[in-house]
């Protein structure tokens, strides 16, 4: 049958049905189940069952320690220990210990998320793998525990939203601005329960940029967010050592039917920030310039890749961040960290006064490594600015592109990347 969306096609494939329609419940076996530090809590839920029945498929779980690394206290250390013992006992092949990187980056960088695959993960930003044409979605810990035991779960076939991006971005505007603009436009619930498909002039977006956009699909409520597989995807996959025979892309039919179709002219999008305390509270940069900041964060699974660091390093080269500002750099992975060292970006950051944190989640979720104090303001390339997100309910988080964060770090106030950092 023609006229199927990406979500319908891929869920039909995994449900072994010729076709499915939105609203239908299907049972699927995902290719992978992503877990991070929360694997400890997941394992603990079903310890007796694991002992009795074992792990349904040892190739299903991928465990990546990234959220609180290195362990910040005895309790987190114990959690990491439980995970390492589980991995050894059940011989889980896909385990990445602390320092490898943020789970979502590792999934893509190591070729564990491929076009046409179905991946579930006990983390809301699992939707990131739509960057390479996978259907990926977040679930809770309990469901992850059930998947370890039975290897399958139910999914409702979602309705889909088609977002068409045409034209070229202006100078000073980045993928982060585009996705924040879209979220501001359709709201934090604008894509609730839906599969979001990006179409249009997407050839101009690198896999890094697609990653930034797919990563934030959840911030508009999406079940998954996906880009079509094209030359850019295939070139990236070949670069990381994935052979064409290892994957089968799935693409929406031209005449598929969508719940909503949205069109954006990229040339009309401006540099923006999401202001406290919602990702959809998006404002053009000129409405917030001049606001004093104490912390700047460049990194995380949203914007901690080599291309992000290149943008920031070009701005910070030979300069010093404002004396009031703490600049935190969090590479998305060890590979990116190494590449950024070779390119000289890390030296630029350190000479500018930056603090480089280990590849991982950093302070994004407020557990450690850069928690804010009451009354402080942070501008960050991460994906959430919820109240209390960086560990303090009386602090403020502004979300922006790496360029905006870098120019703001120099000025000590929120600044416009189009004006080189002096507001």
């Amino acid at each position: 049958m023609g006229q199927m969306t990406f979500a319908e096609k891929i869920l039909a494939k995994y449900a072994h049905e010729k076709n499915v329609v939105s609203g239908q419940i299907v049972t699927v076996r995902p290719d992978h189940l992503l877990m991070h530090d929360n694997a400890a809590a997941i394992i603990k839920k079903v310890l007796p069952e694991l002992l009795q029945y074992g792990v349904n498929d040892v190739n299903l779980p991928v465990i990546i320690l990234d959220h609180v690394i290195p362990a910040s206290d005895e309790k987190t250390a114990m959690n990491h220990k439980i995970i390492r013992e589980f991995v050894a006992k059940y011989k889980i092949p896909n385990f990445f210990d602390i320092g490898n990187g943020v789970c979502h980056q590792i999934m893509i960088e190591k070729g564990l998320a491929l076009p046409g695959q179905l991946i579930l993960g006990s983390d809301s930003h699992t939707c990131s793998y739509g960057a390479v044409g996978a259907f990926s979605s977040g679930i809770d810990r309990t469901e992850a525990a059930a998947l370890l035991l039975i290897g399958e779960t139910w999914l409702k076939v979602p309705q889909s939203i088609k977002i068409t991006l045409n034209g070229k971005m202006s100078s000073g505007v980045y993928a982060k601005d585009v996705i924040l603009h879209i979220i501001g436009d359709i709201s934090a619930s604008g894509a609730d329960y839906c599969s979001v498909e990006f179409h249009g002039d997407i050839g101009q977006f690198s896999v890094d940029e697609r990653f930034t956009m797919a990563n934030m699909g959840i911030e508009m409520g999406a079940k998954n967010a996906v880009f079509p597989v094209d030359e850019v995807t295939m070139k990236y996959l070949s670069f990381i050592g994935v052979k064409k025979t290892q994957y089968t892309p799935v693409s929406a039919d031209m005449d598929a039917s969508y719940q909503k179709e949205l069109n954006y002219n990229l040339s009309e999008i401006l540099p923006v920030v999401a202001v406290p305390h919602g990702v959809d509270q998006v404002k053009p940069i000129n409405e917030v310039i001049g606001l004093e900041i104490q912390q700047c964060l460049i990194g995380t699974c949203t914007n901690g890749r080599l291309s992000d660091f290149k943008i920031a390093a070009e701005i910070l080269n030979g300069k010093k961040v404002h004396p009031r500002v703490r600049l935190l750099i969090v590479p998305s992975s060890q590979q990116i960290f190494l590449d950024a060292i070779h390119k000289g970006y890390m030296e630029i950051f350190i000479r500018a006064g930056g603090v480089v944190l280990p590849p991982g989640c950093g302070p994004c979720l407020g557990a450690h490594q850069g928690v804010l104090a009451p009354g402080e303001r942070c501008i960050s390339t991460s994906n959430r600015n919820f109240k209390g997100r960086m560990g303090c309910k009386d602090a403020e988080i502004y979300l922006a592109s790496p360029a905006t964060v870098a120019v703001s770090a120099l000025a000590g106030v929120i600044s416009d990347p189009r004006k080189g950092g002096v507001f």
Partner: protein
Amino acid sequence: MRIWKYGDNINTDMLFPGKYTYTCSTAEEIKPHLLEDLDPLFAKQVSKDDVIFAGKNFGCGSSREQPVVGLTGVGISAVVAESFARIFFRSAINQGLLLIECPDAVRAYRKGDSVSIDVKNGVVLVAGTSYVFPRLPKEILAIRDAGGLLPYIREKLKQKHQK
């Protein structure tokens, strides 16, 4: 029964701050921090059979399940909202927590109104007026009715291994 009323986009950080995600996982550990940054009175005063009314996109944000485990643990009998975020929605099924998507009931509710819920017939009564809410498909209802996903899976595994 007390009704707790909140607005739109109540996210998982408001329901349970992320900084405790890797140190609290049981209902007892979660309880003191429930809604900590949204409504400090909630954890102190909530009691069994209370109901939450909320706006759009309740539970948006992280996949952490502490909000659902915590609300189930303190005995919240239902969350009635205009809409729910999807991971939270699934999580509630997995913990056996009743979620009712019923925008009309939420919009009708005024402070002090009497509220009762008829799960079997899919009706919320607000100040004497009934509002019908959509019920879950049978195969999903079976998970919630088993008391959540883990009891459901345990039964399934037992049956499979008895064969």
